[in-house]
């Protein structure tokens, strides 16, 4: 499988995602320059962490207008797998590929530390290697990761099983204390209704090597690979999600 890793000029986790795809998944990886519309035949697109165009305006606000994002929107509309990590999640929100918006962390500070995530829906392209309810230790590193959506949208994504990961305690309990940034419903990662586009604030590519701590990020990366290998139809994922909820 080929993973395309998007490079905005201010991406800084692009090399990390690239390395994880190659060394952990053993798959082909390619950098995709923001100014191009060529996805180089990728099966999965990763929008990595960083500060796309500096993010001085609002995270991801300018990135949505880049040529590569037009190509990615088309790719996603055709059912291609897209995974936005951290800044990538912010870009997907701004681009309208995922519902909701990001606010600054409630403490108004950047936060970098390992957090615990509960797998809320294990029947997705991004979590099929996990057990339902499994708790994963994956680090976060962001200043604007406070996910927000209005009540109707929340209701919709909750009922459709689009919430994939939630911040939790080590034992899986969902508490306010376990919420590092103030996200509504402790949301750490969501997917679109069709189930082929995921955004998550935590960094699975940083949790792949025992030398660096947790290896739980592998479950997430392996899930995408499984999905891409299976090419199970995207509608099947969505149906499965709806049935579960």
């Amino acid at each position, binding site marked *: 499988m080929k993973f395309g890793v998007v490079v905005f*000029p*201010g991406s*800084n*986790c692009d*090399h*990390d995602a690239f*390395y*994880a795809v190659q060394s952990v998944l053993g798959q082909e990886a390619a950098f995709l320059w923001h100014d191009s519309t060529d996805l180089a035949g990728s099966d999965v697109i990763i929008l990595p*962490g*960083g*500060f796309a*165009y*500096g*993010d*001085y305006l609002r995270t991801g606000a300018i990135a949505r207008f880049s040529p590569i994002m037009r190509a990615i929107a088309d790719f996603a509309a055709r059912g291609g797998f897209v995974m936005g990590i951290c800044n990538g999640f912010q870009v997907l929100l701004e681009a309208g590929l995922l519902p909701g918006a990001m606010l600054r962390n*409630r*403490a108004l*500070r*950047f*936060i*970098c*530390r390992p957090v615990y995530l509960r797998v809320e829906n294990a029947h997705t392209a991004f979590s099929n290697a996990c057990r339902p309810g499994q708790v994963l230790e994956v*680090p976060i*590193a962001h*200043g604007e990761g406070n996910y927000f959506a209005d009540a109707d949208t929340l209701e919709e994504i909750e009922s459709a099983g689009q919430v994939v990961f939630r911040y939790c305690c080590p034992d899986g309990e969902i508490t*306010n*204390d376990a*919420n590092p940034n*103030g996200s*509504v419903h402790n949301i750490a990662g969501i997917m679109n209704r069709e189930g082929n586009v995921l955004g998550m604030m935590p*960094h699975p*590519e*940083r949790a*792949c*090597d025992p*030398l*660096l701590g947790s290896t739980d990020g592998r479950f997430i990366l392996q899930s995408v690979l499984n999905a891409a290998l299976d090419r199970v139809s995207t509608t099947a994922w969505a149906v499965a999600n709806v049935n579960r909820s």
Partner: protein
Amino acid sequence: MPQITAELVEQHNLPPEEYRRILEIMGREPTITELGIFSVMWSEHCSYKSSRVHLKRLPTRGKAVLQGPGENAGVVDIGGGRCCVFKIESHNHPSFVEPFQGAATGVGGILRDIFTMGARPVAVMDSLRFGPVMPGAHGSPHVERNRRIVRGVVSGIAYYGNCFGVPTIGGEVVFERCYDNNPLVNVFALGLAQRDQIFLGRAGGPGNPVIYVGAKTGKDGIHGASLLASAEFSGADGQQKRPNVQVGDPFLEKLLLEACLEVMQTGAVVGIQDMGAAGLTCSTCEMGGRAGTGIEIELDRVPQRESGMTPYEIMLSESQERMLLVAQRGREQEVLAVFRKWGLDAVEIGTVIEKPLLRVKQYGETVAEIPNQALTDEAPVYERPIAAPPRTVPMEPPPEVEGVLRSRGREQLTDDLKKLLADPTIASKRWITEQYDTMVRTNTVIGPGGDAALLRIKETAQGLAMSVDGNGRYCFLDPRRGARLAVAESARNVSVTGAEPLAATNCLNFGNPEKSAIMWQFREVVEGMAEACEALSTPITGGNVSFYNETEGQPIYPTPVVGVVGLLPDVKRHTTLAFKAEGRTLLLLGGTTAPADEAKVTFGSSQYAHTLLGALWGLPPDVDLDYERNVQACCRELIAKGLVESAHDISDGGLAVCLAESCFPNGVGASVDLLSEAAAGLSPVYSLFAEDPSRIILSVARNSVAEAIRIAGQYKVRAVEIGITGGSDLKISQKEQGVLDAPVLELRALFDHALANAIEGEASGLPVEN
């Protein structure tokens, strides 16, 4: 053209005798632009005029050193055709005047120094010193302001480093009264490069184009080097000098990094240097100076943020995120194409010329023409007067303190440990370090909170350990001993991870060098540092001197900060400070018990004396450098042989704090008896809290103890069993009499929350309600 009057010369911080030399060199009255150029290049910050004669004493060569002082950063060989490039620099005054931007641009400046050499920055560490943030008996009247400075500095470092994409993986943070009006922000950065792809700041090949890249030049930071970095502060300066602080743009720096590394791959780059202190002036004359050539530039072509800037302003601007490079004539287009790709301004602003001088033109007219040598090698050098100041603190403990020390019982000693763990200088720095991206680039094996930070090198599976360390209080009491201790501890921090120290960088923070007492401190520190660097085989490959750290005549403690970098052949064979399991034997490696009279004298330099007694006396401990070297070598061998589960050196707060810190990460307790550590006739206060050097606490599986002790014997290093890990408490006895006993979780809670509470108030540890 303004008249060069005596007042104008004085405003430029040039003493009359230096101005007379300028007249001699020029053979005429300088233009205002030339006067400005001289004033920044001859400033203390750029010329090292007070420090140069002493710095020669430092060892700069070693088997691994590829590039010593004199370039943008030092370069050290790490084998396999690779090298690491590192340096530490100060940004003290800007961070006091404008904490956020001052600290942010401090990070930006050192990062440019690293990638200018062709290396990709992979790590940043910060050595920070502030006035106290806790009110109290020994507190400061400036607690609120100090908190604001801490918040500003930390968020500035985070803002710049996080966006740029370099992990901030460690450092030190110290709170002490002497930094009330002069905080210290020293930033260390390290990058990796191919050995055969190191770039230097040399303007080779007359006729070659000189290309300006990056941000447009604006009126910010004019005279940063001369007025901010090379002069004392007085009362109103804090506000008045704000326009002298630069403003940082980390995104632009990220673009510069990627573009510079890419353009270096073309083979069309002859030399490159960043525009840091003294901006365009410094980069043009230094690049010419190093190559024995000259540079002629045309200011009309310099990208400018506003119209109507004078040559003076353009030459002295310290606008950030700018680079100057010399390309091969005929290959300009290749170079410009790369910068276009990254959306950067890149303009040919001049050429390399044969004559070794800096020539500046505007609208076709020469506005400045100065021989390079006059600005660089021939800048003034001073042998400043040196005189040891009279001691202002006693050698012996004050009588009332001695009474307190003698009478401490178990409850009081336990309480003392709690107070120490909750002192912001000792307490966990998590409130600060969580604001930094510590993991980007996915190489951080040991991040903030360890003795040293440890990175893996993906391509080779090697580990690179690094530590920054200093202790101003030690150096105030005895600068030579203090400097020796700083080198020893920084190297020891590296050794306890298992890595062998290779080389060092230093940041020397002092008061006004025009005072003989300050110069005495400086000379003593350099001498002490030289002795220790020689003994421990850690040559100094570069660094920075920061004088004039005084406000209203009050100098800081002399504060040399030493960064040591070490190499671990196999990163998997490292160790951390955390106790991993119960039932492990605790070995105290190294150290000897000081005789009672000496212990009393050195205890006055300890964190305990500072925090618990609010007192200062005596001298710092005297480190035996030969013994220190053996202790470290022994520790590394024990780690390499896989005999050690944890290793943590004893430093601030002594043995008790060291043990507590090892208990915390996994909540593993320990029981220790200090039979051998109890000096005759001394209270247990000393064995618990004294900070004698060359000591490391190891946890060792029972079946490895004999082997570990045997190996220690080969190094002629003491290794004594002092206890065992396990249980949920930290229990310490002396001659079987309990002297300290507390639940690990209770101690950890104090340690974890103290800093957040101190900076944000008691309620801060709690998350805000949704």
